[in-house]
Each structure stands twice: as C-alpha cells, then as structure tokens.
C-alpha cells in the first residue's frame, strides 16, 4: 500500500535517526557473529540492511544530498584516502621492521601495504572514470576494452605468480604440479 501510493513518509531527521539505529544494530550483530565465527550472518545482514537503507531513502520527501554535499564528499574522500595511505604506510614500515621481534607483525604490515595499494588503485580507476571515461562518446567500448585487458592481466599474473606451475614434494619425490618451466629443486624432498 505504501509503495503503491508512492507517498514519502519520512523526514530527513527520521531517516537519519533510523539509519543510525540500523548501523548500531548492524555493528553489534556483525561483531558478535564474527566473534562466534559465523560469516554468513554478516553477509546476509549487509545485503538486507543495504536494501532497507535504499527503501528508507526513497521514503524521504526532502533532498538528502545535493551538489554541495557531493563536492564536500569528494574533498573529504580525497583527504581520507591521503590520511589513511600515509598512516598505513608508516605503520606498515613499523610493523614490517618489527617482524623479527614478533612474526605476527608481518601479516599486519603486508595487509596494510596491500590495502593501501588497492585503495589507491581503486581511487585512480574511479577518478579516471569520472574525469575522462564518463564524458567519452564511446565509453562502453572503452570500459569493455579496459575490463577485458584487466581480466587478461589478472589471469596472466595468477598463472605467472600464483605458483600453480611448480614442483611439490610428494612421498619423498619432487612431483611437477602443472607445467613448471624450471627443473626440480636441488634440495632434498622430505
């Protein structure tokens, strides 16, 4: 009935309060689910809460975000990325430098390094899209070409660096896994 009538029923303050409540409930449930090593509930809840947020947003009669918010959001996002990247790089060096003291620091440093790389890569791709690609006449062809190139490079990298084609130690003998381009290791296989 509500959807059919298409009447907006929420004010922006009600929407903000409902969103805050939803985030709090979601955070509590997700953190508890992770503690109990249940990863299905957080994924399911994230999907459901996203749908609820979209629905609630459509019920708001006022403008939630306008051009000033988008401009501010862009600046805030850029600054956030810069701050995070610097902090992550500094902590990465610290944790990686301390890996001899505690080996547990190494994965922390690597996670920080890779997350920074992914964040900057994503930012560059999205920036390039909005700055150039979106304004192109043949953006679909260009996007499809770049995506195909990216997938091909990802597959090639996986093939080259994943260690798929390698020698594995099995029953005291070096056994080829895939098609390794190099000879079996000289070390004794135990």
């Amino acid at each position, binding site marked *: 009935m509500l959807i059919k009538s298409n009447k907006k029923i929420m004010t922006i303050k009600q929407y903000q309060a409902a969103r805050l409540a939803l985030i709090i409930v979601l955070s509590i449930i997700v953190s508890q689910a992770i503690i109990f090593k249940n990863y299905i509930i957080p994924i399911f809840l994230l999907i459901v809460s996203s749908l609820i947020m979209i629905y609630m947003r459509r019920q708001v009669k*006022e403008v939630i975000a306008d051009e000033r*918010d988008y401009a501010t959001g862009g600046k805030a996002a850029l600054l956030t990325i810069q701050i995070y990247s610097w902090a992550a790089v500094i902590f990465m060096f610290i944790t990686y430098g301390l890996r001899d003291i505690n080996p547990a620091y190494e994965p922390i440093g690597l996670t920080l390094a890779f997350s920074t790389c992914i964040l900057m890569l994503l930012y560059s791709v999205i920036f390039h899209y909005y700055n150039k690609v979106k304004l192109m006449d043949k953006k679909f062809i260009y996007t499809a070409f770049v995506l195909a190139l990216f997938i091909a490079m990802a597959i090639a990298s996986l093939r080259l660096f994943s260690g798929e084609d390698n020698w594995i130690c099995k029953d005291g003998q070096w056994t080829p896994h895939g098609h390794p381009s190099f000879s079996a290791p000289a070390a004794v296989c135990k």
Partner: protein
Amino acid sequence: MNITQENLANLVGVRRETIVFLEQGKYNPSLLLARNIAKVFKKKIEEVFSF
C-alpha cells in the same frame, strides 16, 4: 517574492543549508543551480548572483 528557504530549496532540489550558505556568500553554486534559482525568481542569473 515571498518564499521561504525551505520552499526555495525544494523547488530547486537542494538542501535548505545550501540556500543558507548561498545567501551568506559562503558557497558558489553550479551553473545549473544558479539558473534554477534565477528561474524561480523569474530573473536572469546575473540579476540574482554577482560574481
């Protein structure tokens, strides 16, 4: 023209705060927003805004 900030914001599709900042000269609108506001007042952009 007798119009509230809220009404003007709804007419041009922005938040009331944006109208407040525009009035205070703390925000430069996009050309589209400037045109829409001028349209509401049935005036030219340069009559509503001074750059």
